[in-house]
């Protein structure tokens, strides 16, 4: 067995899956509360990635950073999370709020409208060119330096940062949802919105908070993607959003640990099918696996089977 190939695919799959997982969490949270497939979520990720790129430019550009790399990373993450979060809140307030009791498909179309708007507005304002984080050129080139694992496999600093960052964010989110008042309100709202409202929970606030947190995670995912995979461009959100959506579903949509598991599953499935089956048909392989999973377990890996109440 070629351990180098196996471990490399494992590292690639986990770090890629971590990015999917962060985006998928936002999808899942929103779905859990509003039963809304927020197709504009991938574009929030795109905006987060561009915010990170803007921060690099502000601090002197890739090869001439005026602050230490760790400070830059923190500033990038904070700004992207804040910016992404605010964008998510705005989308909810102005596009979705009036549609809460509309037929289910109306907000879906609105979400597609928001996605169209964001992608093309980004192209208008920022240009269609691919921009690069160029983290290989940073003073301490985080994407090029690496730790060595067994079988002379390498794991770059960027991959370590992504995996560690994702773990921190997921743990923080779990603590928030489990321990805080607002987190409990979220779970209650997700369980039954009307009953929660009757119990005195301010559902509007809960929804705003959900959008903020979910979109902030997508913003962080945008920065993580930038430091490892470099490119940012206006249409990057579409594909990432699609995969993250798939990840959310595979894990069981509306279920937070499920979203993380789903993200990792997709990342690993992609990596291993490239490594062991065929790079050409890796997407096809992933889709075929997923269809099989969905048919066997329609509610996803960790989702609870939907029981219809009469």
């Amino acid at each position, binding site marked *: 067995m070629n351990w180098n190939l196996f471990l490399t695919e494992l590292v690639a799959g986990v770090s890629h899956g971590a990015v999917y997982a962060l985006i998928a969490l936002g999808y899942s949270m929103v779905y859990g509360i509003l039963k809304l497939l927020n197709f504009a979520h991938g574009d929030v990720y795109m905006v987060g990635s561009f915010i990170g790129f803007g921060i690099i430019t502000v601090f002197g550009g890739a090869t001439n950073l005026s602050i230490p790399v760790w400070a830059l990373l923190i500033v990038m993450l904070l700004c992207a999370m804040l910016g992404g979060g605010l964008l998510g809140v705005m989308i909810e307030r102005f596009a979705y709020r009036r549609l809460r009791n509309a037929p289910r498909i109306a907000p879906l179309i609105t979400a597609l409208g928001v996605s169209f708007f964001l992608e093309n507005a980004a192209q208008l304002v920022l240009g*269609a060119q691919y921009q690069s984080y160029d983290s290989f050129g940073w003073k301490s080139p985080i994407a090029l330096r690496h730790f060595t694992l067994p079988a002379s496999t390498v794991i770059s600093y960027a991959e370590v940062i992504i995996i560690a960052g994702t773990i921190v964010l997921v743990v923080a989110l779990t603590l928030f949802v489990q321990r805080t008042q607002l987190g409990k309100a979220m779970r209650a709202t997700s369980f039954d919105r009307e009953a929660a409202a009757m119990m005195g929970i301010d559902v509007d606030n809960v929804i705003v908070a959900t959008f903020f947190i979910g979109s902030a995670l997508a913003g962080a995912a945008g920065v993580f993607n930038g430091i490892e995979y470099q*490119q940012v461009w206006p*249409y990057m959100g579409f594909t990432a959003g699609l995969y993250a959506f798939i990840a959310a579903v595979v894990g069981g949509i509306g279920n937070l640990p499920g979203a993380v598991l789903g993200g990792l599953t997709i990342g690993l499935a992609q990596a291993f099918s*490239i490594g062991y089956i065929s790079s050409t048909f890796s*997407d096809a392989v992933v889709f075929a696996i997923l269809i099989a999973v969905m048919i066997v377990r329609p509610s996803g890996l960790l989702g609870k089977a939907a029981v219809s109440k009469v």
Partner: protein
Amino acid sequence: MVRRFGLIAAAAAALLLAVVSAASARPSAQAAATASCSKGVSIGMQAPITGPAGSIGSDQLHWAEFYFTQWNKTHKLKIHLVQEDTQLDPSKASTTAQALASNGSVMGVIGPAGSDEVQAVAPIFKKAGLAFASGSATRVSLTGGAWKGYFFRDVPNDGVQGPTDANYMMSALGVKSGSKVMVVDDQESYSTGLADIVQQTLASKGVTVDRESVSQKSTDFSSLIAKVDASTKVVFLPFQVASEAQLFAQQLQAQGKTAVAFGSDGTFDSSKFTVNGSYISFFAPDVTTIPADAAVVKAFHKQFPGATSPFGAPNYVLAQMYATAITKACKDNKISRAEVRKDVLKVSLKSTILGGPMKLTANGDVAGAKFHIFKIENGKYVTIA
């Protein structure tokens, strides 16, 4: 409900009326808009301005727009650019081609960008008698066939680039019968076409070719790079996005592989693909590094701030070609689509921003097409063959 119904019925009636009237009014308005050397002439532009290929298309559009903006500042003969967005979709290309064909003031078309799009629009433009010239469609079979005299391009085709690259790998990069080369396409027709030619050329000489492909949608190359083994000498990357080649080459080095990256013309961008020791083939030097072009590039960036890609500049030359042809047609007092088509073949530019003369062959290909090989040394592109 009742009021709504009435309202909507009225809206529907109005809309239908609008459609019918637009249908009948639009051609008459456009037929009236004929080209005239005193009032102005139009050139159509088909490019994937929006959508996933927007980075290519918007750059193509900007370079052509830039040329005509400069031209109109200094010439009495005004040339307008009519832009049509194809999103790299052949069926959208053929619909917008109809719009250009039925616009009487359009005397020639720049684009479309993709070879499939060229095949889709060719019958329409041929029927309308329009010249169309692409700055990026490189499939070999497009010129010299049924559309001779209608389709032109100012970039050499894959039949020149593929063998040049494969032969260079054999002669200078230590690839020989029995050694291994990985060829990675990005599942678009430009990329697969070129990859096929290189694969065939290498395979015919006994080289083992590991053919892989990555979707343009994914940016994860590390999984693929894990498959590059010690006997692989070269990884050939016919991509359309320079920063993807950059990422691939960097991850190749990061994983400690000895194979060198070899990019095609689509990856030629001295600001984005800069991994030392990599090779690139291109039909002209880089416009942003040619000293003679410094003023042009500066003026371009003044009008369109931000980055540019290697797909842009050839469209500037096409705009130049049309402007020259139209000037000649106007001087002969015979401005028409047929005349522009004939005059395009007579255009001979002594020196273009691509760093050499530009003249078309009778088939519509660029004369004297040659690919150069560059090596990246200290982030700079150095011509080595």
